[in-house]
């Protein structure tokens, strides 16, 4: 699982930085400068990434050419948005450290913290 995740990261790093339609062979050759992977392994990883929606693909002869569906920034922002989204209809799938708030509530929070900080200093003197 961790191995696979690490390989997905390596593949996406390349596709995001190259930013052009790429075949499995090209990715494999680049990865294999440092390691020794089988063609089918990389093909499976890229197929997974296609299924997860990170890669789009177009047929090119007998193989596919893959390209990222969006930028790394867009993808990450969307995923973090999904993780932190506070809606009425959410499951207890994730436990967040703290939920998001609107500006007024954040200000109230800062105020409570600073008031306590002043009290603390006051009691020390």
């Amino acid at each position, binding site marked *: 699982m961790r191995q696979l995740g*690490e390989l997905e*990261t390596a593949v*996406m790093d390349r596709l995001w930085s190259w930013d052009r339609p790429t075949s499995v062979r090209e990715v494999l050759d680049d990865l294999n400068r440092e390691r020794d992977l089988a063609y089918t392994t990389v093909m499976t990883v890229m197929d997974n990434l296609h299924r997860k929606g990170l890669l789009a693909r177009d047929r090119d002869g007998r193989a596919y050419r893959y390209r990222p569906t969006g930028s790394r920034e867009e993808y990450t922002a969307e995923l973090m948005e999904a993780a932190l989204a506070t809606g009425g209809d959410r499951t207890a799938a994730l*436990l967040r450290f703290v939920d*998001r708030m*609107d500006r007024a509530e*954040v200000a109230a929070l800062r105020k*409570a913290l600073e008031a306590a900080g002043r009290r603390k200093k006051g009691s020390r003197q």
Partner: protein
Amino acid sequence: MIAAGLLAGCAVFAATVGGWLLCRARWPQRAPVLGIAAWQALSLSTVLAVVLAGLVLAVPRSALGGGLAELVQSCVWALRAQYGPVGPLVGAAGAALAGGVSARAGWCLVAELVASVRARRRHAALLAPIARTDQRLQALVVPHQTTAAYCLPGPAGRVVLTTGALAVLDAHQLGCVLGHERAHLRWRHHLPVGLARALHRAFPGVPLLRHADQQIAELVEMLADDAATKHGDRHSYAAALVALVEGAAPARALAAGGPAALARVRRLVAPHRPLGMLRRSVTALAILALLALPVAVAATPAFVAAQLPYCPVDVTGLT
């Protein structure tokens, strides 16, 4: 009939006044574990009371009216007198109530469980291509400027942090935030939260279950706060909480975190005074009594009947 009425009365009382009282109580913040137990016991007890009320109406007509009646006719009359004579319609309504409420609760529980496990798996799969495993922190780190910290519970529980969160926390604060998330994972905090959410979904109109859902979610955070700051500075940890909120994009729609986070910060910066041993014990006993109450009310008439000289029924076999 009396038992069914009592049980229904208990359920209505617990679902309205009980929830309201526990909402106003201050002690759960001083003993979050007991607070969670109290909310859970009150919720389960209420649902159980409704199910038992239905069963009490249904049972004299079916089980006791059938096989056992042939054995000890007089005893059945005694039992009937105790539980009150009910018509076939009332009996059927009782059975429908008991069956319906149990089925609805069970179904929503399973649905919540399945949906959470799926959502977690999906999220982990989507994280894999971008997150890096940090061996030192034992956490997944996502390169992004927003300040997020959360955990994915389950057998392969993970803590997830963004680089934005790492940037605003000092070493002590980071240790505490990781401690908070690990406490969630270690003590399986997602289970009480999921149970409360499922009951709320099953019976959305019941105020008690709505409060329980919201309060339990808040109390597990306080519980994890306590675990995280066991040996740490609570004020600096509260500052970390505020920094993480400030670094995240503000909520656009209805925010869920406002009052809950404010309660946590106030609790962290105020002098820490956990509930004393005596009050803890009394509360724990009260919670156990709360759980036993519906069963006791339902079973009492049977025991009364069994005390009658002409009724040699082993009631333990009936209830």
